[in-house]
């Protein structure tokens, strides 16, 4: 799969821009702050319906504009598909697939499969467990778009259940009598159903991903350590009954604290290098390699599924030493499409210098 053309209207720093892209390596060069990440962030948004940099949509719309449009032409198995997405902060996004509007923006998930690696990804390794859960869930949705619904159903039920626990907790503090928990049983049931589906899917995903991760780390670091991932669940089994039992067991503390303490939203993806956890132990270089390996593993897993995803490397080469640069170049040399951004062209190994674009404020120019 590759993106043949990307068009933006009122996205970030761009009033209107169009870029024709090629299969294989595409290198986008420009000084810091010129708008390189803005371009690939927009592409990432089409793939995941979210930005890899910000949690809300408002910053994606060009200052002063009311809405933003991202359009791209995606070629897959020699057929071209047009995807258009309109972002209006505070409202549901509108989307088109081909020429037809879709009922909800979520219906475009799966049209573009893309793996993005950016400096922000260091937080995959150093950040909170939430970052690693998001990594897993995004990959889950990328492989099987129907999990977008499972994930949002789970999150919605969780929010409602927490609201109920919190209001009961507050009532108890004020009136000294237990707040109304008559519907807790219902929320437990629904949380258990969605939670079991999500947990089963994550466990299967980590199983499939683990060998790719070890291999990718090995390749990036030239055999400097044995990297591994393992899923740590707060519930012993991925069944609704097991989630329900865990919820029952922790109910007294939950009522005491007003939050849901077990379930996939409390799970962790443990990262280890040899016998040691990565967080708190690994060096800066090792952490970088691990984050990169997590993305490359996702990329390889999608490839193994039979779909060649688009790979995006944002400002990555500047962070790597020469050895790692060359090894990364070898790994991705035969990718269907790679978009690479950099401030200094010399940082990118020559074998990846395919088509080159110069990014200037508000425009992108292809070099001959």
């Amino acid at each position, binding site marked *: 799969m590759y993106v043949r053309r990307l068009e933006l209207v009122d996205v970030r720093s761009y009033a209107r821009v169009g870029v024709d892209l090629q299969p294989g390596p595409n290198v986008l060069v420009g000084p810091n702050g010129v708008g390189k990440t803005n371009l690939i962030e927009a592409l990432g948004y089409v793939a995941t319906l979210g930005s890899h940099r910000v949690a809300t949509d408002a910053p994606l719309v060009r200052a002063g504009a009311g809405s933003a449009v991202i359009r791209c032409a995606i070629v897959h198995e020699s057929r071209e598909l047009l995807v258009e997405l309109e972002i209006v902060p505070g409202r549901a996004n509108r989307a088109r697939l081909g020429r037809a509007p879709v009922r909800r923006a979520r219906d475009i998930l799966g049209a573009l499969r893309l793996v993005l690696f950016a400096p922000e990804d260091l937080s995959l390794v150093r950040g909170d467990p939430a970052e690693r859960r998001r990594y897993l869930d995004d990959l889950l949705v990328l492989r099987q778009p129907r999990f977008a619904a499972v994930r949002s159903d789970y999150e*919605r039920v969780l929010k409602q259940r927490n*609201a109920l626990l919190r209001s009961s907790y507050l009532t108890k503090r004020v009136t000294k009598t237990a707040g109304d928990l008559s519907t807790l*049983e219902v929320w437990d049931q*629904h949380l258990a159903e969605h939670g079991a589906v999500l947990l089963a899917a994550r466990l299967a995903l980590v199983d499939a991903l683990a060998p790719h991760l070890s291999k990718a780390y090995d390749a990036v670091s030239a055999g400097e350590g044995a990297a591994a991932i393992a899923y740590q669940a707060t519930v012993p089994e991925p069944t609704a009954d097991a989630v329900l039992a865990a919820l029952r067991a922790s109910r007294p503390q939950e009522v005491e604290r007003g939050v849901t303490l077990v379930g996939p939203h409390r799970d962790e993806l443990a990262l280890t290098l040899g016998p040691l956890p990565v967080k708190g132990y690994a060096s800066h270089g090792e952490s970088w390699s691990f984050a990169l390996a997590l993305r490359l593993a996702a990329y390889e897993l999608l490839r193994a599924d039979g779909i060649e995803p688009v790979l995006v490397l944002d400002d990555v080469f500047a962070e790597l030493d020469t050895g790692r640069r060359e090894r990364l170049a070898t790994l991705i040399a035969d990718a269907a499409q790679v978009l690479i951004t950099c401030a200094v062209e010399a940082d990118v190994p020559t074998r990846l210098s395919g088509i080159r674009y110069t990014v200037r404020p508000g425009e992108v120019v292809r070099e001959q």
Partner: protein
Amino acid sequence: MYEGAIQDLIDELGRLPGIGPKSAQRLAFHVLSADPIDVRRLAASLVKVKEVVKFCTICFNVAEDDKCRICRDPRRSDEILCVVEEPKDVVAIERTNEFRGRYHVLGGAINPLEGVGPDNLRVRELMQRLADGEVKELILATDPNTEGEATATYIALLVKPMGITVSRLASGLPVGGDLEYADEITLGRAFEGRRTI
């Protein structure tokens, strides 16, 4: 910001659901340029709706009398009762022509985030209606979203011990949506294919 009356109108319109500041402004200027007779008629119906329309004392649908048109209709079956969230859902289901029983309008769905629990809905009234044993089947037609599903499960748990058949609309309705947005054919099929829970 405009002055006086026009800004007041924009503010009032902007408080309506689904109307943003831009739409409110557009509507206000439309009213300003419209024929005074049309505007008076609009104003009168706004006032009248609060004076005349009441809630049916049996099913809590909107009505102009103590009882709504459906509760008064002797041809409809008392053995089958359909539970919905809002009066607009009654309209949507009536359009399908698949249902000949009676309704019960809850007035919303369980939603802790908005502070809505069973006590804020007409759940107690529903239980009272079911107490005499005349209803044999209860169809839970709450919205196919998180809150609607939870409300359906809650009512099912309450009603099951009474020996009444409880059913839920078949899947096929767009998940996460509103009942009222489903087209007649889809909603009709969901009714036809309802499953016992």
